[in-house]
Structure formats: C-alpha cells, structure tokens
C-alpha cells in the first residue's frame, strides 16, 4: 500500500493544479478570500454572501433588480439590503430564493420582489434552485459543477486575452452606427432597443413572426465583448406588422398562485412585501406590447398583485415614473449611470418618504 499512495498522488497532481487554477480564477469568490467577485451579481456570489451575513431586507428578481448600487440603495432607504436578484432568474427561482432567505434569517422583515409580464409568462417553468441550493452549501459540489468550471475557464481565457471580465455594466457608450439601420438610414430608436424587443418576441410570439436576429461581435469602450444587431430595419418592419393574432403569450397562473402564497406567508410572518414592476422602455411598448396586445395581461397581473394585499410599486403598467430612451441601456435595463441611480432613488427613497 505504501507504494500505491505515491502513485495515486502522482496521478492526482494535474488535478490539484487544475483545482488551484479553479480557486484562483473562479469568478464568484465562492470561498470569500479574493475580496470580491468579478461576477458580483451572480446567484452564487449573492446567496453565499447572504448566508454568511444576511441583512433583514432583501431584493429579489431578475437582472432588472440585480444591478442596483447597494450603497445608493442603503443611502436612499436608510438601511442595508441583501440583493439576491440575479440575471436570468426565473420567477420560480426567485420565489424559492425568498423561502431560502426566510429560512436562513428569522428576522427578515422586508422584501422587494421584482415581477413583470415577462417573468410571469406561461411556459417558463425553469427552476435551478435545487442545484443552486446544493452548490451554495457544498464547496465540493461547486468545484465539480460543469457550469462553474466552464465559467472559470471562460474567465481564465478572457483574462489571458486581456478582455474585461465580470458582470456587464449595462452602461452604454453609443456610436453613430447604433442610430442607423443596415442601409445607413436613421432609425426611430437605437439599434439595440429594436434588437431587444425582437429578442422578447421569441418567448411572446408565435415562431416565424420575425426574421432571425443577425448580429456581429464588437468590443465596447469598457473592453467587454458584445454583439450588435445587423438587421434592425427588417426586424422593425416585421414588429410593426405583427398583430395580436401573432401573440403566444399567456399568463402563468401557477406562478401567480405561488406569489399569492408568498404574500400570505409574508403577512403571517411580519415581512413587509413589495412587488416591484420595473420600468420598460417605450420601444418595448411600441414594438412588442402594442402589436401583440400585451396591455391586457399586464393589467391583469398588476391587479392580481395588488389583490394579494402586498404593496405594488408599478413602473411598468401605469408607471409612477418614466425614463427617457437615453436612460435605458436596453428595453428592460436602465443604464447604470444615466438611469439606474434615478430609479434607485425613486424606488427606495420614495418608500421612506
């Protein structure tokens, strides 16, 4: 046996080197030794941070609730918050995260929960919370998870190329090309706003309503790799020609029921729940909501949320504040410099007032 152990150690050596690389380049600072994650708005980073130092107020939702500057939030609201929202979060995942947060912090007393017509669409039953729950609590599960290893290798590759890594800043530095179509004619709105609306058609309209979105890669002024749409006019024309008959949107009743349950749980446990309907750009209203007739389900959602008894902060259906095109990075996301600070003050400051 004494001869076997050195051989096993020799066999394990490359894997130990690999795990050392993993430790150095994993983008979520899972082990909390790097003084900050390069992907600070990822679910892993946020849940790990919450489990180690939970605040009594939490923010949940998808990327629209994920990008707040937490110092600005604390300044506007006068208290500290844990942000558990993350990009691409499904409603199921946000709901499960709420319960995870509540279980791990009995003194939880406030929750801002981001909801929208898009996250409440039928057919979106994604739920990765079982895997996420395992990964955040078990370092071995984290280190042996395919996605996080792929993220680590991606991070390593980008760092070797000298490209900026981490969360996208959602801060636009637009050029002349962003305001013209494929033939050089002026567009009514920026290219990326058209492309963003077109992207949402994939989940809200019947297949074939729009032509495929064509893109080309480019590096923005921050050094991040991005893609630019190359057929905005074709997409715009198709969107304007769309009708409610092209819509495939329907409301996810099951998730609405889960939200009602969540509201009842909050009422029972003294947690002040606020549903937040984050702002959407006018381009989305014009090119997605209006042609497909989504106003009606949006109003239904607004009413259903209000009926739960929880507070509703509406920036989507009957917005309490509106933001200009230049304040948006894309159709769903406010620019972190030109729009998000104002929304932060409106959302968190107004509540205190």
């Amino acid at each position, binding site marked *: *046996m004494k*001869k*076997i152990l050195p*051989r*096993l150690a020799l*066999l394990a050596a*490359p*894997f130990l080197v690999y795990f050392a690389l993993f430790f150095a380049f994993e983008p979520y600072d899972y082990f909390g030794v790097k003084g900050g994650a390069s992907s600070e708005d990822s679910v892993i980073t946020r849940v790990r941070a919450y489990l180690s130092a939970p605040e009594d107020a939490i923010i949940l939702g998808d990327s629209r609730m994920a990008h707040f500057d937490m110092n600005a939030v604390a300044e506007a609201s006068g208290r500290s918050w844990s942000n558990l929202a993350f990009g691409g979060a499904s409603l199921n995942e946000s709901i499960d995260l709420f319960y995870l947060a509540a279980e791990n912090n009995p003194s939880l007393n406030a929750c801002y929960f981001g909801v929208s017509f898009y996250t409440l669409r039928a057919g979106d039953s994604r739920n990765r919370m*079982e*895997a996420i729950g*395992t*990964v955040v609590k*078990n370092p*071995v*599960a984290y*280190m*042996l*998870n*395919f*996605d996080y*290893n*792929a993220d680590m290798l991606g991070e390593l590759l980008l760092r070797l190329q000298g490209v900026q890594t981490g969360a996208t800043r959602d801060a636009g530095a637009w050029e002349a090309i962003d305001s013209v179509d494929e033939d050089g004619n002026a567009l009514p709105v920026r290219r990326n706003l058209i492309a963003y609306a077109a992207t949402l058609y994939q989940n809200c309209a019947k297949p074939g309503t729009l032509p495929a979105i064509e893109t080309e890669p480019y590096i923005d002024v921050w050094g991040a790799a991005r893609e630019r749409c190359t057929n905005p006019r074709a997409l715009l024309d198709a969107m304007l020609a769309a009708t409610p008959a092209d819509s495939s949107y329907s409301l996810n009743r099951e998730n609405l029921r889960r939200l009602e349950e969540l509201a009842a749980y909050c009422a029972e446990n003294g947690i002040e729940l606020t549903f937040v309907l984050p702002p959407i750009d006018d381009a989305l209203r014009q090119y997605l909501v209006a042609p497909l007739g989504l106003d009606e389900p949006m109003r239904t959602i607004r009413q259903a949320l209000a009926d739960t008894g929880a507070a509703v902060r509406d920036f989507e259906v009957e917005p309490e504040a509106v933001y200009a095109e230049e304040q948006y990075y894309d159709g769903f996301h406010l620019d972190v410099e030109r729009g998000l600070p104002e929304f932060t003050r409106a959302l968190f400051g107004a509540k205190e007032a």
Partner: protein
Amino acid sequence: MTFNSVSFFAFFPLAVLVCRLAPRRWQNAALLAVSYAFYCFNTPAWLPVLVLDSLATWALVRRMDAAEGLSRKRRLWAALGVNLGLLVLLKGASLLLHGAAVNAGLWQALSRLGLASEADGSAFSIILPLGVSFFTVQSVGYAVDVYRKKYAAEPSACNFALFVSFFPLISSGPIMRGDKLLPQLRAPRALHTDRAAHALVTFALGLFSKVAVADLLAVFANAVYGDVTAYTGLTLTFGALCYGLQLYFDFSGYSLMALGTAELLGLQLMTNFDTPYFSRSIREFWGRWHISFSSWLKDYVYIPLGGNRKGKARKYLNLLLTFLVSGVWHGVGLTYLIWGAMHGVYQIAGDATDRLRGRVYTALHVSRTGRLACAWQCLCTFALVNAAWVFFRAASVHDALYVLTAQFRNVSLTGLLADIRAIAASFNAKSLLSAAFLAFVLLALAGGVLLDCARRFKAPGGDLSARVLGLPLVFRWLLYYALAAFIFAGFLMNNGYFATAANFLYNNF
C-alpha cells in the same frame, strides 16, 4: 450511495481502513458492519428485512443440510419460499401500488419510514430494498447447491450474512455462488501492492465506462425514449443504439467497479461481462452478458425444467420459459415479458436454423468462421439484441412498436444531425459547450469501444487490467492520465453527481 457518487469516495477508503485494521478473527464482522452501513446509506428502512432474510435462509439451509429425504426437501422449499416469496411479494406490491390511490396517510407513513417515495407529482411508489432481486436469487442458488450436496451449509451466520450482503455485489451483482465466495470468506485475507494496483485499474476502467460513456449516452437515449413520438427515422435508430450502448457500459462499468472494490478488500468476484457485443450468436451473447445471472438461470431454471434432455420440442419450451423468467426478474411488466420472449425465440430460431445457415455458407463458399462471416454474425447479433432492448427501455409496448416501425419512416441524415444538435443543446444552451459535449461523448465512446476491443483481442482471459499493468511505463501512465481526465470531465458533465445522481440501471431491477 452508488460507486460513482462522491460520498462513495469518502466511504470506501474508510471501509478499507476498517477492514484492514480489524483483527483477523473480526475481519468478516467488520466487513459485514461496513456492508450494512453501505445498505443504510441506500435503503436503511429495509435493513431488518435483509438481516432477517439472511438469518432465516442460513438457519433453514443449515437444518436442511442435516436432514435427509422428505424433511430435506421441505426445508429446501421453505428456504426457496422465504426468498422467492420476498421477491415476488415486494415486486408485486411495488407494481400494484405504483401511483395507486391508497390512503394518503398510509403513503405518508410509509414515506416517513423510507419505504415509499413521491414519484410523479402526488403519486407515490414503493422503494424496494436495495438489491432485492440479487440477494434473493443468490440465496436461492446457495440453498439449491447445498440441497444438491455440491457443498456443505455455511456454519457461520456472520459469514453467510456477509455472503448475502457484501456491499460490492449487493446492488447489482455479480450473483455469486456459495462455493466461490464462502471459502474466500473463511480464508485469511491480505492485500498486496500488485493486487491493489490491479484492483484500482479495474475500478478506474469501470468508472470510466459509467461516468464518461454510459451517463453521457443517457442524455441522448433519455431524450429519444422520453418522447418517442416526437421523432422518426434515423433518430429513433440512434436513440435505440445509444440505449444499447448505455446499458452495456453502465452495467459492465458497475461490474468492473464491483470487482475492483472487492479485490481491494481481498476478495475475488466472478467476471460478469466478457465483451458481449462481439458475440456471433444470441447463445454466445448470453454466455458473455451478465454471466452470473445467465449461468444462474441455466443451473436453477433451465436444467431443472429438463434442459435439452427431453427432446427438441421440450428443449425449446424450456428455453422460452427460462427467458420469460429472465424477463419477469428484470421487471414485472409486459415490455419485459416481450423482451424475454424475444430472446427465447431468438435462441430457438438460432438453434432450429443452424444447419440451414451452415448450408447457405457452404453454397456461398464462405467459411463460417472466416473474418467476414464473423463480422456479419456479430452485426446481426448486435442488431437483434438492440431490437429487443427497445422493449426493455420503452415506457410501453406501444412506444416500443413505434420505435421499431417509425425508424424506417422519414429517413434523413440531416434530420438526424439536427436532432442530435438539438439534444446536445438541451445539455447546455451555449453552442460552444454543447459542441464540446458532443465531441467529448464521441471521444469517450470511441475510447470505450477501443478498450473493449483491447479486452476482446489483446487481453488474455479478458483481464484488461492485467494487460494495462503490463504496458511499458510511459504508455501505462499516459493511459492512467487519459482515464483520469475522462472520468473527471465526465464527472463535471454530470455535475459531480450532486444535482442529478445517476444511478446504475441494474439497481432498478
């Protein structure tokens, strides 16, 4: 806990340590305790049943061995009744109660005891004791052997309990015979470096088959069999082929890991697979696939039924009955019964047309044992076996018939490639990663097939581990690193078995 789970990699070194540190006279007791601990990690609530079954069989067979005549026979039937009764009772209850609208309170009580689980939504199903199909038939074999005076009954209850519950073989075999394992349990055991190296290589080869090949082929097999009517043409053939390969690499991988695990504990188990997909006939296939169970069926079902001693018609009937028993043992359902019947019919047809086929070869002036003829025979056997696997895997007879017929409709290579790409995309939405996944599966499969070819043609006695250990140093270490890299990558692709622990297929039977 399965051999491919992370928890097993923590459990097993501890088990080896406990067994090595135990004094000689307590070695078997320590191994029995470790085996029961392994059992408790899987289906703890059923441990008393395993213990009681072992003790009852041990006591009945001991008393049978001391008796003669009618009394001996009665005790044999009692031992068979205990084991087969347990098997039939539990499998029957599992089938009848699956999803049944039994009192919710009863289901919840059973769930709390770990005897039932929520299956689909609100439907419940019985959790069967780990390895019930294996330890009961192993006990039956032991009782019959002692009755036939092949060897004497085991005097030590501890040794017999270990024979029944030895953790490397309890979940999926191999089904050991008393005269092969019990003498090893009575003898002193020591582990030498060369045996340890052999055991580790055997375990690693098995782990590679399971983690890097079988579980990734499962992505394709599950996608196709999960919704068969969504596909037609070559995709169905591809899905069926993936399952045939998945099952082989899964079960042979398990068997190799069992062999390696037992060897590290100083015990030798029988080989359960000997490159079955290189068989030239269905008869040869059953001499190479799940060998321990095939030989069990031959010794305890086929021969007692009369074997080939009572004329051709009776021989064929016996063959059919034996394979029907095999089908029922794998699962109580029409699909398993048809699968068993198909193999029975294959064997009967093979035997009945043997002379005719010989004449065809002679007329064509082709040697029946020539390379081309052998390749053709292997191909035909492989196709027949895979056609039968369709019933083994499909959710219903309707689905199986659909796969077998619709594969000839809308045959298109581009359609197949598009379906493969779509299934790979379900593994990972990023196109680069799904392409990497596809490339990895192809490479791993090629590696698995290559190792099987080496086992068949280059390893005397099918002992590939010995062949690997005999390679020049550089090649050997290159192979070690390649195996370790594939296992590691396979592990990652299965998310380290944390989120979606992939059980061994034969654990279900």
